């Protein structure tokens, strides 16, 4: 049975920026921020009402409308538990999107790999389409 090819010592470090680190940080910061926002939102709601969260409907928006609406609420300083919770969900939803966007830029600018620039662009366009689904 063929064995995997091995060589001794740690992996060689590549010059330029490290795509793995960027993708890793985008994902880690996105998820951590989202969990923090949801936790603060629920904690605040609990202090106000005695329950972690109050039931309400998001309506029939597409994902993009939802994200833009909640970002605008936070931008204008309309802070309340519901806004923090919604914004936490929006940040979570945008995390994989930001990761794909970063990958597209990397393959196009840093690696100049046409094939993978096209692949990541396709993923980005399909994701954007899904965000606009009504």
């Amino acid at each position, binding site marked *: 049975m063929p064995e995997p090819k091995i060589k001794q010592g740690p*992996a060689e470090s590549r010059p330029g920026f490290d*795509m793995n680190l960027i993708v890793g940080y985008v994902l880690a910061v996105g*998820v951590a921020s989202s969990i923090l926002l949801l936790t603060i939102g*629920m904690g605040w709601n609990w202090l106000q009402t005695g329950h972690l*969260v109050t039931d309400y409907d998001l309506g029939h928006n597409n994902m993009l409308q939802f994200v833009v609406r909640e970002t605008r609420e936070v931008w204008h300083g309309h802070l309340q538990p519901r806004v923090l919770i919604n914004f936490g969900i929006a940040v979570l939803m945008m995390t*994989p999107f930001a990761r794909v966007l970063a990958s597209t830029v990397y393959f196009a600018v840093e690696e100049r790999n046409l094939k993978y620039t096209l692949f990541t662009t396709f993923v980005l366009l399909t994701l954007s389409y899904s965000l606009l*689904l009504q």
Partner: protein
Amino acid sequence: MNPELLFVISIVAGFVGAMSGMGGGVVLIPALTFFGLPIKEVIAVSIVSVVATSSGSAAAYVRDHITNLKVGMFLEMFTMVGAIVGAKLSLAAGQQFLFIAFGLVLFACWAALVIQPDIEYVATVSQDRFTRWLELEGSYYDYAADRTIEYKARRAHWGAALMFWVGVIAGLLGIGAGALKVLIHDLVMGLPPKVSTTTSNLIIGVTALAGASVYLAAGLIRPALVAPIVVGIVIGALIGTRTLVRLQNRAVRRFFLAILALLATEMIYRGLKGI
């Protein structure tokens, strides 16, 4: 349903999901439907929680340079389209169908996890032309073995076709279906186990987002469910992952896999008897 109870159930689901290696969604859906929540709402909230758990664990693995970004980028083109199709099918499907489909898929994931430890890694000797064209190869530093392992993938065309269907399953049922993805990476594409697991995590996040968008547009995502469930499942998964590292016992994993087999049986039974 009481949000505090939801929070506790989600911690348990995240814990059992991590201990069994199947992810929290497969525990969450049977548990919440058992408490009377409509299955489509539960699927919608589960797919949002999948974004959180998969992106969280992918973040750590990517930084360790184990994940193969090119394999992930290539395959997620197919899983993502599949997830949109699957989520649309779910909206049109009847509840009974979803219960039975969930039970059957859970059994398939369960079987994949049971056989996975016995799969021997077979390194690719000669790569097919298409996979070579896709540049699907790489290397990672194995800390346990203290060496860099180089590998080449194979049969990317089959991997892509199968991944589309795994995407359909993920979108249809609101789960990550990581066990099935890993099986395809291992058996069809010849990726080393560590690479297949970590790359699968990366793909799951984007796949779940595509599906979640469909559910949000349908008005099925309720913040009152999402907030406690996402936070709870992430906490449960963190506890589960840390516990698993300490235990490293196959008997423990078998116990949690047995729980999942019971859940699968229960979902099929409820589907057949009309919920």
